C-alpha cells in the first residue's frame, strides 16, 4: 500500500475492475426495474437484462485483457490468470441465467431479484480471481457467499429449500470466520495482507510459526467453500434443497473463484508446509466423495458427492509442481464447469414443478421418452467419468500427469482407483436412462429455447475441450507463467 503519492485512481484502473462494474450496474438495474414492472410478466424481461449483463461482462473482460497491471494501490491485479477466471465466471453466469428462464416459470417463483443476486454473486467471484490482497479477497468471498446463501433458499415455499439455505449460511459463515482468522495470523506474521509482500517475506527463508497457522486456517476456510473433505458435510444437503440451476451455479463458479484464490495464496505467496496438507485433503475428498455417491438415489445428491470427489481430483494438481500443476488445475475448473452446469441444466428441466422428479427411478426410460435430453446428459456424465473425447478426460489426464512429474505416485494411484469407482455410479444413471423401463410415466416437456442454448453451449464446450484441448491449455500455461513471475 504505497498511497500518498497518488490519491485518486486513474482511468485505467477502472478498466481493471470493468467486468465487476458492468455486473454491478446491471444488477442494480434489475433491482430497480423489478418493483416497477408487472409481476406476472417481469420475469422474462429481467432475465433478459441479466443475460445482457453477463454477456456485457464477457465483452468487458475481453477489453480488460488489453490493460494488464495492478490497480487501486495494489488491490487488484489484472493478468491472463485473472482474465481466464473472469471469462469462466461470466460465461457460467450467462449459461445459468439461460437455464433459469424456464425453471423460474415452472416453479412459479416470481422474484426479479433472483437474477440480480446471480449478477451480484458473479461480482464477488470475479473480484476474487483478480484480488491480490487478503482483505479484499475476504470481502469478495463474502459478496459471492451472501448472494448464494439467499439463492439457495429461493424455493421459499419448500421447507427443504430454506433448510438448505440455513445450513449453507451457518456452515459458510463458520468457514469464513476460519478464513478470516487465518488472514489475521498472516497479517501478524508478515505485517501485511498483500500477497506480493507476504510472498517476499515468506520467500526470504525465515518462516514464522504464525504463518503456518495462518495458512492452515485459511485452507480450512477455503476448503469448506470448495467442499473438500473433511469439510464437505454440508454439500449433499445444500445441493439437494437448493434450486437446481443455482446448484449448477454454486458448484462451479464460486468454486472456480476459490480455487483461483487458493492458487494465488499457495503459489504466489510461497505458502509453507502446503504439500502434506493438500495430499491428505485431496485423498480424503476423492475417496469420501466417490464412496458417498455410490449409495445415493437422489440425482442431485449424487452430483453433490461427485462434486466433492472432483474437488479432490482438482486438489491433486495443487500438490504438483507449480509449472505443471497450475495449468492442470485451471483446465480442470473449465471442463468441470462445462460438464456440471450442463448436467444440472438437464436435472433442472427434468425436475418439473416443485422439483418432483429427482430420484434415479424417475430417470428410468428417459432415453426413450426424450432422446435428446438423455443424450446430452450422457455426454456430461461420460465427461464426469473421464471418458476420452470429452473435457473430463484431458482434465484428469493433465492433473494426474502433473502429479506424476512431481513423484506423487501414491496420490495418483488413489486418484485412478477413485476414477474407476466413480465410473460405476455415473454409468448407473446412464444404464437406468436407457435400459430400464419406467414404472410410472414421468412427463417430459419439450426443451425450451433458453435451456436448449444452455445445453448446446455446455455440450459444445465439453466436447471441444475433449477434442482440441491445446488452446485452452496453452493459455493456462501462459497464465501460470504470469502468476509465478
Amino acid at each position, binding site marked *: *500500500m504505497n498511497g500518498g503519492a497518488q490519491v485518486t485512481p486513474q482511468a485505467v484502473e477502472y478498466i481493471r475492475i470493468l467486468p465487476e462494474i458492468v455486473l454491478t450496474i446491471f444488477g442494480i438495474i434489475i433491482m430497480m426495474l423489478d418493483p416497477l414492472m408487472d409481476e406476472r410478466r417481469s420475469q422474462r424481461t429481467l432475465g433478459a437484462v441479466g443475460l445482457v449483463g453477463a454477456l456485457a461482462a464477457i465483452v468487458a473482460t475481453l477489453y480488460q485483457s488489453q490493460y494488464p497491471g495492478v490497480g487501486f494501490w495494489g488491490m487488484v491485479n489484472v493478468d491472463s490468470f485473472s482474465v481466464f477466471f473472469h471469462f469462466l465466471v461470466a460465461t457460467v453466469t450467462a449459461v445459468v441465467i439461460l437455464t433459469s428462464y424456464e425453471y423460474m416459470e415452472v416453479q412459479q417463483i416470481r422474484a426479479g431479484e433472483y437474477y440480480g443476486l446471480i449478477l451480484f454473486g458473479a461480482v464477488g467471484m470475479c473480484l476474487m480471481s483478480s484480488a491480490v490482497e487478503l*482483505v479484499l479477497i*475476504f*470481502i469478495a468471498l*463474502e459478496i459471492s457467499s*451472501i448472494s448464494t*446463501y*439467499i439463492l439457495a*433458499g429461493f424455493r*421459499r*415455499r*419448500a*421447507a*427443504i429449500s*430454506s*433448510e*438448505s*439455505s*440455513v*445450513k449453507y*449460511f*451457518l456452515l459458510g*459463515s*463458520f468457514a*469464513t*470466520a476460519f478464513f*478470516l*482468522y487465518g488472514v*489475521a*495470523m498472516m*497479517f*501478524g506474521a508478515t*505485517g*501485511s*495482507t498483500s500477497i506480493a509482500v507476504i510472498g517476499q517475506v515468506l520467500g526470504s527463508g525465515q518462516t514464522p510459526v504464525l504463518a503456518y497457522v495462518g495458512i492452515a486456517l485459511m485452507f480450512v476456510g477455503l476448503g469448506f467453500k470448495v467442499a473438500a473433505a473433511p469439510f464437505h*458435510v454440508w454439500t*449433499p*444437503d445444500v445441493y*439437494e*434443497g437448493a434450486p437446481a440451476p443455482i446448484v449448477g451455479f454454486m458448484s462451479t463458479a464460486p468454486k472456480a473463484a476459490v480455487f483461483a484464490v487458493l492458487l494465488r495464496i499457495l503459489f504466489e505467496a510461497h505458502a509453507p508446509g502446503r504439500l502434506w496438507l493438500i495430499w491428505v485433503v485431496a485423498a480424503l475428498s476423492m475417496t469420501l466423495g466417490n464412496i458417498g455417491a455410490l449409495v445415493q438415489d437422489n440425482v442431485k445428491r449424487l452430483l453433490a458427492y461427485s462434486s466433492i470427489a472432483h474437488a479432490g481430483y482438482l486438489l491433486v494438481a495443487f500438490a504438483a509442481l507449480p509449472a505443471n500443476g497450475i495449468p492442470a488445475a485451471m483446465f480442470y475448473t473449465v471442463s468441470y464447469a462445462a460438464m456440471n452446469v450442463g448436467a444440472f441444466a438437464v436435472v433442472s428441466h427434468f425436475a418439473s414443478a416443485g422439483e418432483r422428479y429427482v430420484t434415479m427411478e424417475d430417470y428410468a426410460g428417459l432415453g426413450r421418452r426424450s432422446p435428446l435430453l438423455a443424450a446430452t446428459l450422457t455426454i456430461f456424465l461420460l465427461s464426469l467419468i473421464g471418458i476420452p473425447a470429452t473435457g473430463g478426460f484431458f482434465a484428469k489426464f493433465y492433473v494426474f500427469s502433473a502429479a506424476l512429474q512431481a513423484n506423487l505416485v501414491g496420490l495418483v494411484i488413489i486418484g485412478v482407483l477413485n476414477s474407476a469407482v466413480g465410473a460405476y455410479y455415473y454409468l448407473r444413471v446412464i444404464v437406468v436412462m436407457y435400459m430400464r423401463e419406467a414404472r410410472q410415466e414421468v412427463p417430459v416437456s419439450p426443451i425450451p429455447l433458453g435451456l436448449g442454448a444452455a445445453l448446446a453451449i455446455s455440450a459444445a464446450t465439453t466436447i471441444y475441450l475433449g477434442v482440441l484441448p491445446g488452446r485452452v491449455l496453452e493459455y493456462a500455461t501462459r497464465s501460470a507463467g504470469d502468476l509465478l513471475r
Partner: protein
Amino acid sequence: MVPLSYYLVLSGILFACGVTGFLIKRNIITIFMSIELMLNGVNLSFVAFAANWHALSGQVFVFFVMVVAAAEAAVGLAIIIAVYRTRETLNVDQVNLLKL
C-alpha cells in the same frame, strides 16, 4: 504495557468459545451468535497485530469485518425467519428434512 501475547491468547479463547458454541448449541440463533463471537475474536487479533506492527491498516480491516458481519447478520436473520415460517422451530435437531 500489556504484551501482545495476552491479546492473542484472549482472541484465541474468544474464537474457541465461538467454535464450541457453534458445535454444541442447538438453537439456530445461538449458533449464529457464536459465529459473531468468532469474528470478534478475529477482530481483537487484528487490532493487536496492528498495534504491534504500527500499521494502521489492521485497524481499518476491523471496520471491513464489522460491515461484512452486519450484512451477513441481515441476510442470516432473514433466512432464519424463512426457516421458522416453514418449520415453526429453530432447533437444529428438528430442522432435519435433509439427512446428513
